[in-house]
């Protein structure tokens, strides 16, 4: 077991012996992972290391071949995906995921609606949804999309779609967020803004993210797990991990300053 | 001056389009001309529609015809389900329905109506004609291939009763989905049963395909006889004699029966792209003729009076000869058992049948007391 100084009670999400086997190929192989409550935890590693697969396992978009997952001490290994989200563990996607035909406002409101639990009311007029507009606007503002509120999401540029996706996810006020490469395809200024945003929202929640942008990782994360070939290669703070020769060889590369 | 409006309601696009369809309109028109309605001060208008063999469409059209368009008489209506629908509406609206195309004997039985005449044939008569004759010739072991729906069941039931009543034996039945395409499996079962006669209690395309495949699998060559329980000359035309030869079937009319039928059929064919009439066409002609006679004799279109006149006057026409309409609405005439010719026997198109036997009118139809017609009992 790796250095586990904090008390177990502070672990919000924990995986033990997590494995995923695809036909003739083991993508994730006995991964142990503990995410501390309130921390920003980064999952990095070379392409194909199994990071996205881990995400899919943790959020039950894939069923693990072996291992257990506990969230707040509760075993969620066999729970369906939608229920996991309802427990407060929400993910974003590596390839942008918005509702392309809905407006930006509606995108965010869908999340708010879920949180408020009135989404099955087919007998009520949707004018009740306007109550959510103010809060939705707030989220949209946070990611700098306020001038696009009524735009159709599908027509936004790639970077803005990512921003919208984050706004939507945040609207759920999840206890824990899983972000898969939130900075991918973002322009520099957005990177800074989203970084700040992630830091801000991390104040009262836990974040687990996959990211290749090392400066972001260095800047944001409290703890880093490095995966390679489906296994944990190294774990610790950025300083520790980035000096690990195995990590340098497998991931960071010698050319990186 | 009386004006009557006749609606020819039949199948103009489906399986029965050839045996009823436009031909029935032609037949109705010929009846009006031959009767010289105009000369007798009766203006006749003929309208027609396609019921697509669906009871709902039929009921719709009938309703609208009676309610809106002032139709007095509906004729033809093949397909029993559609006929029942028209039967109901006609009773409700107190008009007249003279059926030629439909087969179900229930039309003058369980579902009978004082407003309905059933002219040309019915399943009971077909079963009787074919069943009795076949058994009498010593073909007494039967196997039924039955379409698995109400009409098929009725056909099977009626024929089975006749076969067993004449001393025959039913060695098996198999029910196929309706409509079907491949019947080889059932034919093999029939073959294995050792029956002498395979009764085809299905209709339209199903029958045609069964016959076709029976020939392919050498069923008839191997000595079993096929008996079509509801099959028309148009079906034989479609099958071709090579395939259909040897099949036995019952009809009430064949164009080549006598000089009168030949003459009429000649005229009919001239208007119908050279295609000879079916018994359904003949029935439409004869029933319209009889109706017009009643209109002439009563001088009005009052339903009760017309029905009474039609039932009390014996029928007489060149196609079915002399006959009568029974109290329950059943038209009574001879039925004929035919055998389909081989290609060698046939002299040309439409020369298809050899007459095997004739059931006299008195025996041809189900006795009135067996039908269970409600309004008679009253």
């Amino acid at each position, binding site marked *: 077991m790796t250095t586990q100084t904090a008390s177990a009670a502070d672990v919000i999400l924990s995986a033990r012996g997590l494995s995923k086997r695809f036909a003739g190929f083991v993508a994730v192989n006995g991964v142990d992972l503990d995410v501390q409550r309130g921390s920003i935890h980064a999952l990095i590693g070379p392409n194909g290391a199994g990071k996205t697969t881990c995400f899919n396992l943790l959020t039950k978009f894939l069923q693990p071949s072996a291992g257990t997952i506990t969230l707040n001490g509760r075993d969620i290994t066999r729970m369906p995906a939608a229920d996991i989200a309802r427990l407060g563990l*929400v993910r974003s996607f590596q390839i942008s995921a918005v*509702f392309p035909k809905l407006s930006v406002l*509606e995108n965010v409101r869908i*999340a708010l609606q879920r949180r408020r639990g009135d989404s099955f009311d087919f007998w009520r*007029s949707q004018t009740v949804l306007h109550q959510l507009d103010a809060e939705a606007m707030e989220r949209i503002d946070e990611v700098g999309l306020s001038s696009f509120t009524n735009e159709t999401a599908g027509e936004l540029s790639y970077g803005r779609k990512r921003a919208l996706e984050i706004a939507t996810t945040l609207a759920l006020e999840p206890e824990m967020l899983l972000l898969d490469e939130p900075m991918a395809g973002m322009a520099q200024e957005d990177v800074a803004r989203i970084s700040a945003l992630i830091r801000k929202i991390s104040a009262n929640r836990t974040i687990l993210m996959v990211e290749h942008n090392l400066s972001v990782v260095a800047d944001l994360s409290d703890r880093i797990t490095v995966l390679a070939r489906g296994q944990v290669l190294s774990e610790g703070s950025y300083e520790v991990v980035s000096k690990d020769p195995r990590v340098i060889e497998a991931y960071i590369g010698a050319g990186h300053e | 001056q009386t004006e009557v409006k006749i609606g020819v309601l039949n199948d103009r696009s489906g399986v029965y389009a050839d045996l009823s369809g436009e031909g029935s309109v032609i037949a109705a028109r010929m009846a009006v001309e031959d009767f010289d309605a105009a000369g007798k001060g009766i203006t006749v208008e003929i309208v027609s529609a396609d019921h697509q063999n669906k009871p709902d*469409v039929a*009921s719709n059209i009938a309703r609208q015809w009676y309610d809106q368009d002032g139709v007095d008489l509906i004729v033809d209506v093949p397909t029993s389900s559609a006929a029942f629908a028209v039967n109901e509406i006609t009773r409700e609206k107190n008009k007249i329905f003279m059926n030629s195309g439909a087969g179900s004997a229930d039309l003058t039985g369980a579902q009978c109506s004082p407003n309905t005449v059933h002219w040309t044939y019915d399943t009971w008569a077909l079963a009787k004609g074919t069943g009795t004759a076949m058994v009498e010739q010593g073909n007494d072991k039967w196997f039924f291939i039955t379409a698995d729906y109400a009409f098929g069941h009725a056909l099977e039931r009626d024929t089975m009763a006749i076969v067993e009543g004449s001393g025959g034996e039913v060695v098996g039945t198999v029910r196929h989905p309706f409509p079907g395409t491949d019947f080889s499996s059932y034919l093999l079962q029939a073959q294995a049963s050792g029956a002498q006669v395979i009764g085809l209690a299905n209709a339209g395309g199903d029958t045609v395909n069964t016959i076709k495949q029976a020939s392919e699998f050498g069923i008839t060559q191997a000595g079993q006889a096929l008996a079509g329980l509801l099959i028309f000359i148009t079906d034989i035309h479609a099958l071709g004699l090579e395939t259909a030869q040897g099949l036995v079937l019952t009809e009430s009319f064949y164009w080549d029966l006598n000089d009168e039928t030949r003459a009429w059929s000649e005229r009919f064919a001239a208007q119908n792209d050279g295609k000879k009439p079916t018994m359904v066409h003949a029935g439409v002609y004869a029933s319209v003729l009889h109706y017009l006679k009643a209109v002439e004799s009563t001088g009005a279109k009052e339903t009760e009076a017309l029905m009474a006149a039609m039932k009390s006057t014996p029928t007489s026409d060149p196609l079915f000869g002399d006959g009568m309409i029974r109290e329950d609405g059943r038209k009574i005439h001879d039925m004929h058992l035919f055998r389909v010719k081989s290609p060698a026997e046939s002299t040309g198109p439409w020369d298809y049948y050899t007459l095997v036997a004739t059931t006299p009118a008195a025996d041809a139809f189900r006795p009135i007391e067996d039908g269970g017609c409600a309004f008679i009992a009253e």
Partner: protein
Amino acid sequence: MTTQSETGYRSEAAALPVGTPRHHMVIFAVLFGLLLVAPSLLYPVFLMKVLCFALFASALNLLLGFGGLLSFGHAAFFGSASYVAAYAAKAWGFNPEFAILLGVLAAAVLGLGIGALAIRRQGIYFAMVTLAFAQMVFFFALQAPFTGGEDGIQAVPRGKLFGLIDLSSDLTLYFVVLAIVFGALLLIYRIIHSPFGQVLKAIRDNEPRSISLGYKVNRYKLAVFVMSAALAGLAGATKAIVFQLASLTDVYWTMSGEVVLMTLLGGMGTVFGPLIGAAIIVSMQNYFAGFGAWVTVLQGVIFVGSVLLFREGIVGVLAKWLKKPL
């Protein structure tokens, strides 16, 4: 991941803004007014047929235009409800309102069964699966002892509404049907413009994302499927009482095709499209009935024409023109 086409038929629905546009209510009111006086000009039985199909098409539209699910087997619900209602009225002597209710219930239950299986597949698969199940229902209707086979259930009594109002007069029945159909249309309208409707749109747009937000997607799909089935059942049951007949036509797959045609022609995902589409197709069948197989050809031509030139449907085009959702 399947390739997502860029512009689908869904754009119309998505363009609907939140809230109930006032002009919709105006149109509903005008429509209602017109229908109140219509029987003095047109044959009431014909009008009732139009109304029933308008409801049927709207029910399908709820699923197709707003749920994004093309059911090619909706005749199963329409037809089975019509059988159940007819049977209840004829064999058990139910009052029409109970007969209809029982029909709706039957359609809903059937919808639950078929829906639970069908929503396991998406897109065209869904269409084919519903089609296949509908075919099963058809065979059942053909062979079951109580459906009367190809004769159907005929001579169904119209009976007395609530045991009081005699429905044998076409005109009385017409107003009852008008009330039923209009009530149902308003209900559909409300469903579309409800929070639930909003979630449906989202699911149709991006299903995995909806799941990741915690929506139990299949429940929503099933819910809208059952609603649509029940409403289609309402149309079928009402039709059975009007025409005093339930027949195989109502469960055959061509019926499923026809109702899709109505919706497409009128405008999928528009509120009023299905009504217009139903009115046109029913009139066409009525007035061109004499043309035999040409009616089928004509329907085919309309189908092809709508798909190629007229995808938004009549009302969709109109809405584009007026720049207002209709």
